[in-house]
C-alpha cells in the first residue's frame, strides 16, 4: 500500500494557488478592454478642466465603466502585489502583516474611488 503522501511530497504546499492563478487571469482579461478604454478616453479629456472631466465621469455609461474598471483594477493589483510579497518577504509574521496591509489599502482605495464616481454620477 502506498500512501498518497508519496505523490504529494516534493510538489510544494497545496494551498489556494489554482484559484488565485485563475482569478489573476480572469481579471487580466477584463482589464484589457477596460484599460485601453480608460487610457484613450482620458487622453481625449482636457485634464485641467474640472467641468469637462466631471461631465465625462457623470455620464451613466462612463460611470458604470469606471466602477467596473476600479473594481477589476484594485482586485488585480492586490493579487499581483500579494504574489510579490509572497516571493520577497521572508518570515511568516512579516509576510502576514504585509499581506493584510496590502489588502486593506487596496480595499480602502477601491472603495474611495468607487464612492467618488458614484457621488459625481448620482449628483451632489
Amino acid at each position, binding site marked *: 500500500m502506498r500512501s498518497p503522501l508519496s505523490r504529494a511530497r516534493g510538489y510544494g504546499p497545496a494551498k489556494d494557488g489554482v484559484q488565485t492563478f485563475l482569478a489573476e487571469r480572469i481579471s487580466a482579461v477584463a482589464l484589457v478592454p477596460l484599460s485601453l478604454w480608460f*487610457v484613450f478616453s482620458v487622453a481625449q479629456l482636457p485634464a485641467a478642466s*474640472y467641468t469637462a472631466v466631471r461631465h465625462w465621469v457623470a455620464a451613466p455609461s462612463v460611470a458604470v465603466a469606471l466602477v467596473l474598471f476600479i473594481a477589476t483594477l484594485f482586485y488585480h493589483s492586490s493579487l499581483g502585489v500579494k504574489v510579490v510579497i509572497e516571493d520577497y518577504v521572508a518570515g511568516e509574521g512579516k509576510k502576514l502583516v504585509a499581506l493584510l496591509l496590502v489588502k486593506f489599502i487596496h480595499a480602502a482605495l477601491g472603495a474611495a474611488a468607487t464612492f467618488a*464616481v458614484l457621488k459625481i454620477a448620482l449628483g451632489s
Partner: protein
Amino acid sequence: MSSPAPQARPGVNRPLSPFMLGQYYRFQLTSVLSLMHRVTGVGLSVGTVLFACWLVALAGGPWTYASFAKHLTAWYGQVLLFGWSWALLYHLCNGVRHLAWDLGYGYSIPAVYRSGYVVAALSVLLTAAAWGIAYVR
C-alpha cells in the same frame, strides 16, 4: 526583503545573484521583459493611489480638483503620467503574451523572442498614440 545571504558551504565565497547582474550574468530580452512585467506591475499598483486621489479630488469640488490638477499638469506630473501610461500599456501587452502562454501558445524560443519584440514595440506605439491624442486634441 532582507534575508541573510544563503551559505550552502560555509567558507566558500561565491558571487550571489544581485552582484552577478551585468558582470557575470548576460541579460536576455526574455528575462528583461519578464522582470519589467513585475516592475511595471508594482509601479502601477503604486499608481492606483494617484488614480483614487484623482477621482476623490474630482468629487471634492472645483477647488480641490484645481489643487490636484495643478500637479498633474506640471512637468513632474506629466513625466509621472507618461511613465504610468507606458507601464500600463506595457503590462497590458505583455499580459496578453502571458495569457497566450497560459493557453499553450508561443513557447518555442523564436516565438518567445518574436512576441517579446512585438510587445516592446506595441507598448511604445500605443503610448505614443495616447500622448499624440492628448497633445493634438
